[in-house]
């Protein structure tokens, strides 16, 4: 098991580099530049910009420099940057994981931007995840156990409603009711617990619905399987059967689904961030792509891809715990 985890952790590095390379290529292929605006730039101004950002160098040099910056390279004496991890081996200064400065927001380094904005999306994301998990799992399990009961239909209708009403619709509806009519919660901006309520509900709704439905389906599937019948036959009480045996097998689809979902939640979701004016990472990510802000895009992609891979690893490990029949060799 340990060697499996180590192998999987190690492979993340080349995979992340591959993702970054592909992304870098895509940015270069995409039309438009970070400096293009409504007003055309005179050639001299454009030349200055190209020179400043090293765009006048051959492409392979630019690529290698980018790769060196985001992994590790030696640092020359005249560099003043403090971004990334810096240390010295003997007399050689080494600088690692520096994604450089944003092109759109030159005052800030990419590492700083991620550090600044991650907490916002992470707060809302984790809260929404917990809410979705608790409500979704709870509703799903009860619905599965009381199949075809009023609760089953009621909760599944609600779940379907959660799915049929996209969050860009749900958010404004909640705002209209709770902020602009009842004046209970602020309509937007981040600050204080009360400002978290609406965004978290909006964000959690769709995941809640997904999880509820997946749990119900998974549980129904499992509760009919032979080993549950065996467990029941052994005379175990219903609670033990349900929680020790049923749930463990039944939530496998939920686990497969929520692994990547958690990574996506942490990284922020554009719609909710925009509706509630929350300075999360999701908006930064989309904007960086639309702005052709190469370092920022690469930084967030690197962060995101590592997160996704780590979460998927956790999912794979948890399979083993949830279902003893799943083995990794």
């Amino acid at each position, binding site marked *: 098991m340990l060697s499996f985890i180590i192998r999987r952790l190690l492979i993340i590095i080349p995979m992340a580099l591959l*993702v970054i390379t592909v*992304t870098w290529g*895509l940015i270069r292929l995409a*039309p438009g530049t970070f400096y293009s605006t409504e007003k055309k730039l005179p050639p001299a101004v454009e030349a200055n910009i190209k020179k400043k950002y090293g765009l006048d160098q051959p492409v392979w040099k630019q690529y290698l420099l980018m790769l060196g910056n985001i992994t590790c390279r030696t640092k020359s004496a005249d560099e003043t940057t403090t971004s990334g991890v810096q240390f010295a081996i003997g007399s050689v200064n080494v600088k690692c994981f520096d994604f450089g400065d944003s092109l759109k927001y030159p005052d800030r380094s990419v590492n700083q931007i991620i550090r600044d904005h991650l907490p916002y999306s992470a707060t809302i994301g984790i809260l929404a995840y917990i809410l979705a998990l608790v409500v979704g799992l709870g509703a799903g399990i009860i619905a599965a156990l009381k199949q075809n009961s009023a609760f089953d239909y009621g909760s599944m209708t609600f779940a379907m409603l959660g799915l049929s009403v996209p969050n860009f619709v749900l958010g404004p509806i909640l705002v209209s009711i709770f902020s602009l009519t009842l004046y209970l919660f602020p309509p937007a901006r981040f600050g204080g617990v009360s400002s978290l309520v609406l965004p978290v509900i909006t964000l959690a709704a769709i995941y809640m619905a*997904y999880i509820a439905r997946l749990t119900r389906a998974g549980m129904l599937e499992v509760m009919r399987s032979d080993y549950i019948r065996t467990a029941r036959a052994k005379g175990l009480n219903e609670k033990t059967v349900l929680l020790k045996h049923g749930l463990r097998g039944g939530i496998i689809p939920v686990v*497969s689904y929520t692994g*990547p979902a958690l990574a996506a939640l942490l990284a922020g979701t554009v719609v909710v961030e925009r509706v509630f004016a929350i300075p999360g990472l999701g908006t930064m*990510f989309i904007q960086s792509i639309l702005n052709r802000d190469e370092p920022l895009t690469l930084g967030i*992609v690197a962060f995101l891809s590592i997160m996704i891979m780590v979460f998927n690893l956790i999912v794979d490990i948890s399979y083993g715990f949830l*279902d003893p029949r799943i083995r990794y060799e």
Partner: protein
Amino acid sequence: MIVLGLMVLAVAFGPAIIRWTTGFTADSIPSDGDLIKSFPPSWQHPMGTDEAGRDMLARVLQGGRISLMVGIISTLVSLVIGVSYGAIAGYMGGRIDNLMMRIVDIIYSIPYILLVVVLLSVFGGQNTPEWIQWLSARFGGAGNQGLNQIFLLFFALGLISWLTMARVVRGQILSLKNQEFVQAARATGVSTFGIIFRHLVPNALGPVIVYATLTIPSVMLSEAFLSFLGLGVQAPYASWGSLASDGIKNIGIFPWQMIFPGVTMALTLFSLNFVGDGLRDALDPQTRKF
């Protein structure tokens, strides 16, 4: 089921009927400046009009064409690719599984918007390679950029919608593949292909079908977002997703702009969901009557 059938019929023939009876089409903006505004529902316009004075009923029916097509085709694509990919990875295990799932991880990590932007600039604009033009001329008929766009749209949507499906299926297969019935099948000499598709996949269908019905709304919404990038249905026509996202901005003032597309969409999703439940019951090997 009935609702779904009606819906399909309505979007297929509705626009023509409305045009024939009232003369309104999804893109007709009145020439009189005073009529270019959003009117509430009336006998003439049962769903009201949008800001440009266009009949909402005609727009909703027209929008249903693209949304239903996008929803169903992309979900089928994700079913076909996702299920077979996930099942093979899950059953084979070991290195093959590892490799296949890492590919999924990588595709999942590449920024999707960027991919679409590049796709569009390569295939959607003036620089479209000839073979794509040839294909779209063959299957498009009309010869305008419209069909090219639809091909691209399905490609773009299909590209991502199968990824999570593959993960869900793989997770299920992993837990199923060591069960007795699989071992029994293996012992009786059923081929690997047979085991995967005749024994494992049918047993994993419950969550798969639920997940598939969940994919439909999310694909419809992705389509609304892709039209922001210039991919998907082109103005003056709109899909349900974009109608709803336009309508929500005005919900405080013109609620009908939101409610009618929203309710139509919700009704359709609902009925699709029941079809899904029915399908699962019909295909479930444990409830199937031989």
